[in-house]
């Protein structure tokens, strides 16, 4: 059985993720691999990644209810060294963002050198959600998008909205 040696910490975190999900975030482990999570993050309000109607219904905090866009799929894996090493996370939904590359890899300090075992899956996902609200073109992963963002921000934001509409429909 692949999951028989699952550390207590991971079991605890998983239970809490399922019983008290953070607003706009859902994460559930795969049936055949409890270290591998399917994640959905709703684009934050007033960001180019928000769903077209999501701000109208503040009660809609869980994923899957909003069908108008702004639903981003991610995958997350807890490596063997976790929590001494950071979780591995990437976007599966295409997204136009200076800190996320074409393969969905995320440039975020806490996933790299700023990782601490005091952080959790929940804090990682909240940080990614916050990154959507605050793109950081000065520490880019996608050079072209970062350049676009720094030179013509309004236009870049429009492209991000367009991609949200095209790819993050939640379908």
């Amino acid at each position, binding site marked *: *059985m*692949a*999951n*028989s*040696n699952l550390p207590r910490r991971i079991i605890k975190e998983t239970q809490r993720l399922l019983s008290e999900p953070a607003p706009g975030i859902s994460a559930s482990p*795969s049936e055949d*691999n409890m*270290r*591998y999570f399917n994640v959905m993050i709703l684009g934050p309000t007033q960001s180019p990644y928000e769903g077209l109607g999501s701000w109208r219904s503040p009660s809609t905090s869980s994923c899957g209810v909003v069908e108008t866009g702004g639903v981003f799929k991610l*995958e997350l*894996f807890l*490596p*063997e060294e976790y929590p001494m090493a950071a979780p*591995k996370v*990437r976007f*599966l939904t*295409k997204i136009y963002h200076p800190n996320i590359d*074409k*393969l*969905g*890899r995320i440039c975020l300090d806490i996933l790299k050198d700023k990782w601490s075992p005091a952080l959790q899956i929940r804090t990682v996902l909240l940080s990614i959600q916050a990154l959507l609200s605050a793109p950081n073109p000065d520490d880019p992963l996608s050079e072209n998008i970062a350049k676009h963002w720094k030179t013509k921000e309004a236009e870049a934001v429009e492209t991000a909205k367009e991609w949200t509409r095209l790819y993050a429909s939640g379908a």
Partner: protein
Amino acid sequence: MTLGSGGSSVVVPRNFRLLEELERGEKGIGDGTVSYGMDDGDDIYMRSWTGTVIGPHNTVHEGRIYQLKLFCDKDYPEKPPSVRFHSRINITCVNHETGVVEPKKFALLANWQREYTMEDILTQLKKEMATPHNRKLVQPPEGTYF
């Protein structure tokens, strides 16, 4: 080093395993005689890869640059990728008409294990070129393709 194994029950899922392989390939492997990279930087599922093997010393393959195509389907790495030579080559495990590396004649594919990597495949093919039954075979002209 084997990627994706830890001698324990932790199973690295397909996509994260391929990301590890991608990063390892980008850094460059060993003496550079085998290398690989992804074909389509937009393919979120990282299916198509091109591998390169430089023919080993003291063989008819010496100095030749062989290009291969590797295809990692959804069931990789539980199942091996399909592998075929793009550059023409004459060795026993490669189909003479299609360039496909035939698993029946190439043990690494026939006895595939999940911790094997694309690097292992390319390295093993390089060794295959230097075996007594392959090192002296007459080769098609350099720079021709299947």
